[in-house]
């Protein structure tokens, strides 16, 4: 029998494998980094009361971040339910005069009505503080990589809906230096070797810091995440007794860096040739 010889160099028909979305691939990398470090994954509601999104994090009710310009409020359903009374009362007093925390507080009359307003969460920290209020036995190490919302007009740098990476460690005697050490380990796992820490400010952490990382491919430093130790005014109303180290940053920036994308909107345009073309390991 004689077989006809094929032209083995001729191109075969193109087929495309089923595959994971490139952003999802990075989410999985980040999750793995947390899981390798012994963190528990948490998940909570995307719609939050202003109470958990802002008040529980010691953001005064007239804080600029709470304005309609920055936060998506809901027209329907409009208002949610406040948690147990002891939480609400302690939070109210902490805002008004510092309660038993030794703080001056924000010196205004706290409104429960304002705290009931429903928002699309502006950070996953609303879920974190809720989780801590229910898990007070140290050590607690928790993380999430999940959706958050900003009232932002879409352009090449901004999205209204994006993913936040967040982690916390609550334990006896954890310190700012521990937070810096943990951050170094975490970003090393994601391939960022040179990370620096600078003073910064967030309403619910003190001391606060921000991390920047050197990206050799771009020969530049980028902002990675904000971090700090939760303020006593955040912990006391929920009876949390030990320091909480926390950090949070955007996922998309990391994704854009890894994929070499410079228009953030491309990430969720779901252009099939873009997804099909992207090697799954990079």
């Amino acid at each position, binding site marked *: 029998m004689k077989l006809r010889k094929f032209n083995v160099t001729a191109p075969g028909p193109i087929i495309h494998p*089923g595959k994971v979305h490139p952003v999802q691939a990075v989410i999985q990398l980040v999750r793995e980094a947390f899981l390798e470090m012994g963190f528990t994954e948490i998940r909570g509601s995307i719609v939050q009361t202003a109470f958990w999104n802002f008040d529980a994090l010691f953001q005064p009710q007239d804080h600029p971040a709470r304005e309609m310009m920055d936060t998506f409020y809901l027209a329907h359903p409009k208002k949610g339910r406040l948690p147990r009374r002891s939480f609400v009362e302690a939070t109210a007093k902490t805002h008004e005069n510092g309660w038993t925390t030794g703080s001056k507080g924000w010196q205004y009359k706290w409104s429960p009505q304002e705290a009931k307003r429903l928002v699309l969460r502006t950070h996953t920290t609303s879920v974190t503080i809720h989780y801590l209020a229910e898990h007070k036995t140290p050590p607690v190490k928790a993380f999430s990589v999940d959706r958050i919302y900003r009232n932002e007009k879409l352009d090449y740098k901004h999205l209204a809906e994006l993913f936040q990476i967040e982690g916390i460690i609550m334990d006896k005697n954890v310190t700012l230096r521990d937070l810096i050490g943990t951050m170094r380990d975490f970003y090393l796992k994601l391939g960022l070797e040179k990370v620096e820490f600078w003073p910064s400010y967030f309403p619910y952490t003190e001391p606060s810091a921000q991390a920047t990382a050197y990206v050799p491919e771009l020969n530049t430093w980028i902002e990675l995440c904000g971090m700090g130790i939760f303020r006593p005014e955040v912990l006391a109303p929920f009876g949390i007794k030990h320091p909480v180290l926390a950090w949070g940053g955007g996922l998309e920036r990391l994704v854009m860096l890894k994929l070499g994308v410079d228009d953030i909107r491309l990430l969720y345009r779901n252009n099939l040739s873009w997804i099909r073309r992207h090697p799954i390991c990079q």
Partner: protein
Amino acid sequence: MPVITLDKDRFSQFIDRPITVEEMAKWLPWLGASIEETGPDFVKIEFNPNRLDFSSYTGVARAFCGLMGWKTGLPEYVVKRGSIVINVDEAVSDVRPYILGAAIYNIKIDADSIAELMEMQEDLHWGIGRDRRKASIGVHNLDPVEAPFTYTARDPETSRFIPLGRTTEMNLKEILEAHDKGAAYRHLVDWAPKCPLLVDGKGQVLSMPPIINGELTRVEPTTRNLFIDVTGPDLNAIAKSMNILVTALADMGGSVESVQVKYPTQTITSPDLKAEQMKLRIRYANRLLGLKLSETQIMQALSKCRLRATRLGRGVLNVSIPPYRTDILHEVDLVEEVAIGYGYYQLKPTRSAALTRSKQHRIQQLANHVRQVMIGLGFTEVMNFILTNEANEYVKMRKRVGRVVRLANPVSSEYCIARENLLPSLMRNLADNKHETYPQRIFEVSDIIDVDKRTETRSKRKLHVAAVSIHSKANFTEIKSYAEALMTNLDLQKREIIAVKHASFLDGRTAGIQADGSMIGVLGELHPEVLNNFELENPAGAFEINLEKAI
């Protein structure tokens, strides 16, 4: 976030020594400012809203000199007892009840410092004043006016003056309606029958708070004596604004004199530039930072942050805080000052010893199982926003709009509701990919939000999976096989497939998926009208399953 552009030469006058742009860019971030931009002779920094004292050259210079060790410790401010009185009329108590004043003498200003003062005012209006609602500032040339002043409320139609930037008199109503500042801030006063007004002993108008000053007291480069007024409904906020502004003016060389503010029931002497006192426990600071600093080291660190610490007892310091540091609320804020004075760059990493076992969230784990099966079946994952619009979700899908989660302030009509299904997003993806090669098989495993009155947030986030297969031979049988393969692998054994009607699918080729007696999904051939609405030319099969039952 507020920014300030620091010209190198001007900045060096404030720090009393020459400096390079490189040195500024190197050290300013260690104060908590981030470098926005550097040029050949300037550094533009963005500062955090807690440090509004960085809104002036002198404010930055003060902190910078401390950090560099050139000038440390508490800056002291002297307020001489002045003779100016502000009488507060009861009439203003319903509109904008509080005012504080200060007089500044013998200050040398130029065009640059006037511009700087204006920017500083804007930063304070934003950061403390909450866009002038809680506090607004007026800076005046003191010389053309005569004390005592009266802070009162007047009828908007009969009171008149020349507002800043105009040449003719306008009445208050005209200013609210026709002046650009009036249009911008009228909502703060126009609900009241009378408008707040600050007038001098001869009845001349200094300002119409919080809208605009009078032309009469315009500050020029030749001005040497200033009068400051801060008004608002919140005495605490106006005192903070006053302190940050007046300390900057004092550091610019002005000498500060007090003003007696006489309310019907009390008299307040302003400004109050006394240092505030707070305790700091050495052990508390060291424990939070992870350091073992001695009392002396901590006192030195605080001194570099322009605070003064004295020993109060064993392990406890008394810390004096300058009046411009309005951000220090709690002992923990002093701990951060210790870290800044010590230098964040000196903080060596350590690791917390806590041994914990990692745990994935069961929903994320399930989503990953779904991903694995769908990819195995040859589907490509897409990721869409939860925010969407009615046209895509309902009209194009031939469905009626229900009571969905809806935004009060959407940024565009394209993103105004939360999706309650994934499939419409996938249809839009197909529409966007019409020019790509077929077959196309895509899926999404992600969240939807349903209204649910029983929960704390009146809504519930649920994990769904949806998939579409589109090509010339796509049909019911194909998509059913895919759906069955997925469900079998998710161990959804007790499911039942029944014939149903669904507006988005072809009648007679639509099946419902039931589990434990409730409907958890739908599968079928998409209705030609739906395909047409998304301008698709091939037949398509799709399914969507609520995964709550599989968890």
